[in-house]
């Protein structure tokens, strides 16, 4: 931190009866060539001691006026004979004024709180900025909970801006929400940078921290472990803020399978990047726990709910027998559940029964239809065979970054993943057995998941719950959206820290921004990439900061460097899936299996092998396929190119 306070004042406080100063606002004028602008932090040196102390007041410029000594524009018209181009330059420039309004950031001393006195106005030095924003409290020796957000720059002052980890990650306050227009607000870059900053500076005394990011669109977050191109200015800012200009060291990716089950449904499918990509697949048990996420509450009434509870408690994963059933069932997969329902309904029909254990046959048919349909609606995520591949619950790494790619999934599947992952995080954090004490969850497109005027969905209730109670658990929500006004008030309202990138003018016209001056709103509407306005509990006014481009590979660059692989044939997919169990399996072995037994049969055994994880894969397949009929002529494996969302080529902060 440098302190190069200019000795000369750049302005003087003025107050008139019509434009008085107050404890929260003051006015000052400057020379015409002053470097002051909207967002500049200034220091006022009071001249009159109060209780023996000369007050010092810090403020941030929120508005500015400029006018000349003309009483009416008509006078200027007269002066130029009505011709803007003539008659040549006047030898004397008109007197004009730059009059600024500043909102008070801090009074020193804090008491007695008085109107801002007349006095000289100085450009705030780096040390002044620290005091003005109360950062001195948590950057002091013994506290050290600062998380660098960016750099405040104005008039030659170059001051790091730190957030307080106690108020960003908890427990005093928590959560961070970022708003801005798509493509210009650099929301994703800001979150990547902030996560890197947290990982670099989060105090060891607060325990390990990890992050779970949901990649909801394109390749935004799919190359966080790869270095990105940085300019010298970015590197300098990284160094200034003490954040290594390196990609994230420990990133793991999770993605469901494609509907065909051949490969993972993610744009990070290049073979060179598969070492840290894992499938995200859940079985019946995992899904039934969150069935209500997928079921329409208007459709599933109390009777249906009761039957679902019965299945969960009495049928699932246990031997279940009943006189109506033709045989005992142990249901652990969707296929098993379908068989159980089929057997039950057939038995009821044969006995001409309308009900079974208080459940009407219509209810049973409806529940069967809804539950079994889940496997279809969430194909790729929900495995019919019950293979579970999940996040490493209980073994989260400190500074680990876990990216769940849901970009290509249907809305239902996305909701299911949000619901389960966040619920699991919560449960493990409550029990203290997640492996880390704090988890930052990043959710983009909050407009959709927690809309203010949308339906009361399970996901929205869950986000509200995190926003309101997550900080006590160490579950921290970093969220982003284009239109803050369209997100549920309690979600954004509970975010202790709010970041704003370039904003849409219509959005700025909504009531939520009325507290900002027109000048600040204008600046928000014209922010450059890499600039943010930040609100933080310690900052009594919004502050503008710059942040560096994160040192990770942008999604677009990653897609060019590691283009997604075409969906492989079943043989290649089989080998890829079994590679963690046995990396010596040759392609010819897989080709033989598929040729002999067909794709469907081989994939069935693959699911089982992944579930049971046999020591000898070849032998397992041989035993499982023994006696099975050879397959008919296999259909040629279809390959389809993956759709890649186009982004502007000249966007340095692009995804």
């Amino acid at each position, binding site marked *: 931190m440098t302190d190069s306070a200019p000795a000369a004042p750049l302005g*003087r406080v003025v107050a008139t009866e019509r434009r008085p100063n107050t404890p929260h606002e003051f006015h000052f004028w400057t020379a*015409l060539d002053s470097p002051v602008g909207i967002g500049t932090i200034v220091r006022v040196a009071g001249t009159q001691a109060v209780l023996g102390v000369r007050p010092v007041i810090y403020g941030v410029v929120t508005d500015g006026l400029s006018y000349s*000594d*003309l*009483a*009416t524009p008509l*006078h*200027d018209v*007269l*002066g130029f004979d009505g011709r803007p181009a003539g*008659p040549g*330059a*006047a*030898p*004397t*420039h*008109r*007197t004009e004024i730059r009059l600024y309004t500043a909102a008070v950031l801090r009074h020193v001393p804090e008491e007695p709180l008085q109107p801002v006195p*007349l006095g000289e106005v100085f450009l705030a030095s780096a040390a002044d900025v620290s005091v003005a924003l109360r950062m001195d409290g948590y950057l002091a020796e013994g506290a050290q909970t600062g998380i660098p957000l960016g750099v405040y720059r104005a008039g030659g002052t170059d001051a790091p801006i730190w957030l307080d980890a106690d108020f960003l990650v908890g427990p005093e306050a928590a959560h961070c929400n970022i708003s801005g227009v798509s493509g210009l607000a650099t929301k994703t870059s800001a979150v990547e940078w902030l996560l890197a900053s947290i990982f670099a500076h989060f105090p060891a005394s607060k325990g390990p921290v990890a992050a779970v990011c949901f990649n909801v669109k394109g390749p935004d977050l799919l190359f966080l472990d790869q270095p990105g191109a940085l300019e010298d200015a970015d590197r300098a800012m990284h160094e200034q803020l003490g954040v290594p200009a390196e990609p994230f060291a420990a990133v793991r990716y999770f993605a469901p399978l494609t509907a065909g089950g051949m490969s993972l449904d993610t744009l990070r499918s290049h073979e060179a990047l598969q070492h840290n990509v894992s499938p995200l697949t859940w079985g019946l048990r995992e899904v039934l726990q969150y069935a209500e996420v997928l079921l329409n509450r208007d459709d599933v009434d109390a009777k249906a709910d009761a039957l679902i509870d019965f299945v969960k408690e009495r049928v699932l994963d246990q031997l279940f027998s009943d006189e109506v059933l033709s045989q005992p069932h142990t249901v652990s997969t969707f296929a098993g559940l379908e068989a159980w329902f089929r057997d039950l309904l057939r038995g009821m029909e044969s006995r001409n029964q309308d009900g079974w254990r208080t459940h009407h046959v219509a209810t049973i048919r409806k529940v069967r239809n809804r539950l079994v349909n889940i496997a279809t609606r969430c194909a790729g995520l929900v495995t019919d065979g019950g293979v579970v591949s999940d996040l490493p619950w209980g073994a989260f790494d400190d500074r680990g970054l876990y990216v769940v790619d849901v970009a290509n999934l249907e809305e239902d599947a996305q909701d299911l993943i949000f619901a389960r992952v966040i619920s699991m995080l919560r449960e493990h954090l409550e029990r203290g057995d997640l492996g880390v004490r704090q988890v930052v969850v990043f959710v983009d497109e909050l407009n959709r998941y927690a809309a203010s005027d949308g339906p009361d969905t399970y996901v929205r209730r869950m986000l509200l719950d995190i926003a309101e109670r997550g900080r006590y658990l160490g579950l921290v929500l970093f969220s982003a959206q284009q239109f803050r006004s369209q997100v549920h008030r309690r979600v954004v309202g509970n975010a202790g820290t709010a970041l704003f990138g370039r904003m849409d003018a219509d959005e700025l016209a909504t009531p939520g921004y009325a507290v900002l001056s027109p000048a600040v709103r204008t600046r928000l509407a014209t922010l450059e990439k890499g600039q943010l306005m930040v609100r933080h509990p310690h900052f009594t006014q919004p502050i503008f900061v710059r942040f560096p481009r994160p040192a990770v590979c942008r999604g677009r660059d990653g897609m060019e460097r590691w283009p997604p692989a075409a969906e492989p044939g079943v043989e290649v997919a089989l080998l890829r899936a079994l590679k963690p169990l046995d990396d010596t399996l040759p392609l010819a072995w897989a080709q033989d299996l598929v040729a002999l037994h067909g794709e469907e049969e081989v994939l069935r055994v693959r699911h089982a092998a992944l579930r049971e994880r046999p020591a000898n894969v070849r032998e397992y397949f041989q035993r499982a396929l023994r006696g099975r009929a050879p397959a008919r002529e296999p259909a040629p494996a279809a390959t389809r190119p993956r759709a890649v969302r186009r982004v502007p080529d000249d966007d340095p902060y692009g995804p």
Partner: protein
Amino acid sequence: MTVPAGAAAGAAAGQAALLAMARRTLGAASPRALVSGAGGAPMEVARDARDEARLSPARVIEGDTVRAHRVAGEPDATFGAFLDGIQRTERVGYLDAAPIVLGSVAAVVRERHEGRLRTWGGGFARETRVYLPLALLPADVPAQFEERGFAIADTLAGRRDRAVDRSAGPHPLELERAACDAIREHRGAMERRLADAWVERGPGALCVDGPLPGDAASRSPAVTGVVKSHRELQVAGEALRVVLALAAGERSSVLERTSATRVSVATWYLRLRDPAGRHPLWGLVRVEAAHAPGGDGVALAARADAVSRMVLAESRPLALPDSRWDVMVYPIRDCEEFLRASL
């Protein structure tokens, strides 16, 4: 009370405080004191209303008669600085029939640098005095003002020829007028000091609001006076008709303005703006410049044209919203604004 030069900002509030302090001092000086309150006509206005317009024809020194001359050449903005002064007169109150007046004067030289005006180093002065007719007051009254830090001045100074009868005394309004005259003299002296300083060490040409102040300025070719007021006209008869008929960009023949108390100067009328549809004196100024006796007529005309070009160059920007914008050059308005802010 002399206020340090350069302490202009916030002086308006200071002036009010000084007046309030002066009134408290008078109230404490004598139970017979009648302390003035706020309001009432400004003293300068009351005094100015008693002035009378008059004709004082001056000798023509460019040719034989007053003629109109088109100012040749383009306007030439070579004035480097501008000088103006102001005064403020406030009634503190009366003790019996003796008025006590608070007079503040200020003057400034504003230097032009890249089109912007700024105060020339050492070119600002401001002083406040309490004016009392000492001969009519008990000795302890001025003493009390002095104790409070006020500089005091005798309203009757320079009027010793008048016998002051403490029992009868002059008319109170006559004493007020005397105070105004004293304050105006004080302002004139301050302007002279600044003009002298400029003549001594100022870089470039100085434009003064009003007649040339003092002998040094009247002899210096670097100083030009621009007179806006025409209560006293230097022409009469046919010459007056010529002057009133001057078109925009025309000047009159040069005259010689003489006085028993000051150095003779060259002067001429100059029309800054077209008066069509307005008063015949609209846009008309009288220019004063140093007069070097013995010069030839060609040089005199060339000098008058050169100075006129400099004045015409200052006709923009308009000095609006000042009501005298037709005759006021903008930098002089800037000086006035500066001085108003300082008093």
